[in-house]
C-alpha cells in the first residue's frame, strides 16, 4: 500500500471577465501566406442565360415559393398548391426533382405548360410522429434556363394538441435532506377548455417523495405562447428524504382532452452530498471509474473533478490515499475556491503508469475492481471510495 499525506491549499479563482477571457490561435490550418485570388477576381460559374432568342424562351413564374402551414397536429396532414405560370413564349416543361424526404409528397398537375398557361404543384406533408418546427423542400426542374430549378418550401410547427413545457424537469444538485420545486406549464392548442383531471407518479418506489398542484393559467400568460389557446400552470415538488444519487420519476397527467392527450413528463435529477465527483468514464451511480484495458507501454490516466460544497468546504483535506493494487497512482491537483460560489474544486488524476505489470481488475462486481480509498477530514464524508475497472496487458 502506498500512502500519501496531503494538505490542500485553496486559491481563489477569479470570475471576472478578464480572467475568463482567452485568446487562441487556430494552429491546425495556418494561413499559408498565399493571397489566393488577390488581384485576380474570382470567376464564378452562373447558370447560362437564355437562348439567342429570349422572346421565345419559356419563363417560369411561381406565385410563392414558401408556404407556412402554421401549427399542425402531429397526426394531421397538410398540403398546399403552388401556382406555376409560363410567362414566356415557348413551352415550359416541369419535372420533379429531389424532395427533402419521402415524407414530403409533391405532385405536378401538368408536365408541360403552353405560353400563358398555369398549373399547380402540390406539396403535402404528414409529420408522422415528428414534433417541432419543420421546413421541407422540393425541387421542380424546368427548361427555363434562367431558373432551371425552383425550390419550393413548406414550413410550420407540429405540436400535440396538449403539450407540457418543459417536457422534462431537471432537479439537479438537490442537497441531501433538501426539497425543491419546479414550475410546469401545460398548454392546449385547440379551442376547448383545458382542465387537469388527475395525475399520478409512475415510479412507485419514489412516488411518495413527489407532489404536484395545478391551477388555471391567466389568459395573458397562455396568450404569450405561440399558437396556444389555453393553459394550466403547475408546480412539481420534491420532498426531503430521497437518498444520495440520481432519481428518475415520471408524472402522468390526465387532461380534459381525453386519453389521447394524456401527458407524461419526466422528472430527473440528483441528490448530492458535500463531496461529489464528475468526469469522463466515471459512473457516479456505481462509484466506478472505467479505464479499461491499458497497454503497459503506454499507461493511461483519467482526470476527475472533485467538488466540495457546504460549510466545511474551505478546510477540507484529503488526508490519506490508499490504492489497491498499489500500481494505481493518484495525483491531487490544486484546490481552487470560486468567487461567489460555495464550492471548492479539486482536479483528481488517477493513473495507470507506464511500465505497470500485467493485471486484471475488470470484475463484474465491485470486489473484482481496483479500489482507491481517500480519507478526509470532512465530518460528514470521512472516506471516499473510487472503484477502478482496468487491466494492464503487454
Amino acid at each position, binding site marked *: 500500500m502506498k500512502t500519501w499525506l496531503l494538505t490542500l491549499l485553496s486559491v481563489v479563482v477569479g470570475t471576472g471577465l478578464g480572467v475568463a477571457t482567452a*485568446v487562441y490561435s487556430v494552429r491546425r490550418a495556418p494561413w499559408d501566406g498565399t493571397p489566393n485570388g488577390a488581384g485576380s477576381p474570382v470567376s464564378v*460559374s452562373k447558370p447560362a442565360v437564355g437562348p439567342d432568342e429570349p422572346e421565345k424562351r419559356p419563363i417560369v413564374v411561381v406565385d410563392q415559393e414558401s408556404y407556412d402551414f402554421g401549427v399542425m397536429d402531429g397526426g394531421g396532414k397538410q398540403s398546399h398548391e403552388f401556382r406555376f405560370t409560363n410567362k414566356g413564349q415557348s413551352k415550359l416543361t416541369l419535372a420533379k426533382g429531389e424532395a427533402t424526404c419521402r415524407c414530403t409528397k409533391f405532385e405536378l398537375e401538368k408536365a408541360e405548360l403552353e405560353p400563358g398557361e398555369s398549373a399547380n404543384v402540390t406539396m403535402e406533408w404528414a409529420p408522422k410522429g*415528428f414534433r417541432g418546427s419543420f421546413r421541407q423542400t422540393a425541387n421542380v426542374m424546368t427548361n427555363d434556363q434562367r431558373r432551371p430549378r425552383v425550390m419550393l418550401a413548406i414550413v410550420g410547427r407540429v405540436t400535440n394538441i396538449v403539450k407540457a413545457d418543459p417536457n422534462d424537469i431537471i432537479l439537479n*444538485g438537490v442537497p441531501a435532506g433538501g426539497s425543491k420545486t419546479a414550475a410546469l406549464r401545460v398548454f392546449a392548442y385547440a379551442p376547448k377548455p383545458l382542465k387537469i383531471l388527475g395525475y399520478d407518479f409512475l415510479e412507485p418506489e419514489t412516488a411518495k417523495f413527489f407532489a404536484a398542484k395545478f391551477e388555471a393559467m391567466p389568459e395573458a400568460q397562455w396568450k404569450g405562447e405561440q399558437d396556444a389557446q389555453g393553459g394550466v400552470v403547475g408546480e412539481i415538488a420534491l420532498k426531503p428524504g430521497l437518498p444520495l444519487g440520481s432519481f428518475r420519476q415520471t408524472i402522468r397527467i390526465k387532461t380534459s382532452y381525453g386519453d389521447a392527450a394524456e401527458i407524461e413528463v419526466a422528472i430527473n435529477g440528483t441528490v448530492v452530498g458535500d463531496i461529489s465527483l464528475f468526469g469522463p468514464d466515471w459512473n457516479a451511480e456505481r462509484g466506478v471509474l472505467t479505464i479499461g484495458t491499458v497497454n503497459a507501454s503506454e499507461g493511461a490516466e483519467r482526470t476527475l473533478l472533485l467538488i466540495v460544497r457546504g460549510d466545511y468546504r474551505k478546510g477540507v483535506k484529503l488526508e490519506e490515499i490508499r490504492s489497491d493494487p498499489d500500481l494505481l497512482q493518484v495525483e491531487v491537483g490544486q484546490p481552487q475556491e470560486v468567487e461567489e460560489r460555495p464550492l471548492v474544486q479539486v482536479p483528481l488524476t488517477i493513473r495507470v503508469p507506464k511500465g505497470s505489470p500485467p493485471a486484471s481488475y475488470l470484475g463484474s462486481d465491485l470486489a473484482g475492481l481496483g479500489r482507491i480509498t481517500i480519507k478526509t477530514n470532512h465530518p460528514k464524508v470521512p472516506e471516499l471510495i473510487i472503484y477502478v475497472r482496468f487491466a494492464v496487458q503487454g
Partner: protein
Amino acid sequence: MPRKLCSPRMPEGLCAAALLAVLAAGCSTSVFSGDPAAEESASGRNPPALTLDAGEPRKNPLREGTAEPIQKRPDPGKADPGRKAPAAEGSKTGQGTSDRPPFDPIQANGEFFVGWPKPTLALVFTGCTDGYFEPCGCAGLDRMKGGLSRRHTMLEELRRQRGWPVVALDVGGIVKGWSPQAVIKLHNMVMAMRKMGYDAIGLGKNELKFPGDMATYAPSVRGNESPFVSANVDLIGQTAKMRILQAGAVRLGVTSVLGKKYAVELDNVDPVLLKVTDAEQAIRKVLPALQKARCSLLILLSHATREESIELARKFPEFDLVATSGGYAEPPADGPRILGPKTQFIEVGEKGEYAIVLGLFDDPKQPVRYQRVILDSRYKSSPDIVALMESYQNRLKDEGLEGLGVRPMPNSRTELLGKYVGSAKCESCHEESYRVWRKSGHARAYETLVKAAPPRNYDPECISCHVIGWHPTEYRPYAGGFWSKEKTPLLVDVGCESCHGPGEAHCDAEMPGSKADKALQEKLQKALVVTKADAEKRFLCVSCHDLDNSPDFDFPTYWPKVEHYENKDGE
C-alpha cells in the same frame, strides 16, 4: 477604431490594400499563441501586441463588396458529368437496402463548393447535434444524413485535401435526454469534437443539465484550452466569455449565449455549479472587450430559439454573423437571411445533419460564399470517430443496463395482459401470422444490432426498437420486457408482442383446462387486436420508423410487408 475604418463607407481599395499588405508580409504565425500579454489585451486591459498592421483597418469580408454577396448553392442537376457516383456506404446493419437501387448522394444532394476558389477562411458552423453521434441506420446508413464521423471527414477534406484554412464553430446542443448513458455519450462526443478541432463551442441547454460533467472541461481541471465559450453561462467560475481566434490574416471574435426560453429549463439545475444570467446583459458586458480586440469579424453563437436569436441579431448589429440553434430542422439551401444592416443569420439545422460553410474571399465582387453541406454518404467514415464510437459502445457493454441506470417502467397493459412471453409461443395457434412475421425484417431486428460494426446490442437507444417490451423513445424496458439475450432469450427481435402487447394472459386463457371463461377470452383477444387503422392512427409503426430512423418509411407501402389477419373481419 479599425472596424469604423473598414466600414462600407470607406473606399474598398483601402481595406483590400491593407489586407494584401498583411498577406504579403506573411501571417502564418499567430501573434496570440499562448502569449499571456495578448490574453490580457483581449480582455480589454491593454492594447494587443499586434504585428499585424497596427492601427490599420481590418478587412471585414462581410461588410464589403457588392449587394449580392452570397453565391447560391449550385444546381444539383449540374453535377460534373464525368464524376462517378461513390460506392454506397451501405447499411450499418447490412439490412434493408437490397431491394433498392444504389443511392447516389451527389445526384440526390448536388455537388458542394462548385466554383469555389481557395477561400481566405472557411467558417464551418454546426450545432444541435442532439445526441446523434451517428444517424440511425435502419433505412441503410447510406441514405441517412449526419453523424460526427462524416462531419470529421468533411472538415478534414477542407483542411487537408483542399488546403483551406478552417475555423469550426458549434452553437451547442451536443446531447439530449437525461441518463447515465447521456453523460457517457456527452464525454465521447466532446472528445470527438476535440478531434475535429473545434475552435469555439457554445453551451447548449441539454449539456448544461450535466453541469458537473461539463465543468470537467474547465481549463483548471484539464490544464489546456477549452473550446467552450459563453457570455451568460458560467460553470464553476471558469467559462470563457469570449474567444479571439487568429486564423491567418483574419481575426475573429466569438461569443455565445444561452437564450432565456432555454435558460428557464435550467432553473433547477445545481446552482452551485451553474449560473445563467440574462443573455442581452451579458452581451452588453462582453461586447466592449470583443470590439477592443479589433477583430475582422464578430460572431455570436446563439443557443436560443429562432425568434430570440433574430431579436438578438437585431439588437446587436455589431455582430457580423449570428448562428442559431433554433432554426428549422433543415437549414436554408440558398443562403443566410440578412438581418439589420448586414448581419448574416445562419441556421444549422438539427441532429447534426448539416454543416454550414461560409467562405470568405479576398474578392470585392464576391467576398462571401455560402454552402449548406448535407452530411451524406459522400463523406466516408472517419477512423478516429469510428474508434470513439467503438469505445463508447464498449463502455455501454461494460456498464450493462444496470450500470446505465436503466430501470423497467410500469406498463399499464400488464394488469390485464400479463407478462411478455415471446413470439415463439404464438406460433402454435397463429401459424400463418407467425410465418408472415418470420419472413419480415422484424424477426431479424436484434441480429442486425449484433452484426453492426461496432455491435450496438448493448446500446439502450438502439435496443429499444429491436426487441420486445421496450418503450421506443424512453430507451427503457417495460416491466418484464427484454433485458439481455442471456436473461430473456425469447424477447429478442421485434416480435408479436411489440405491436400487440404482452401475451401471457391470452396464452393462459386459451390453454386447455384454463379457468378463463369465454368473456375473458374474448376480452383478452380484443385487447391484443391491432387493425391497420389502429397502427396508422396510434403511430404504432412510426414510433420506431420515424423521420430520423426511417425517413423513407411510408405506411401504405410497408404495411403489406407485415400484414396478417386471424379472421375475416380484418383483425
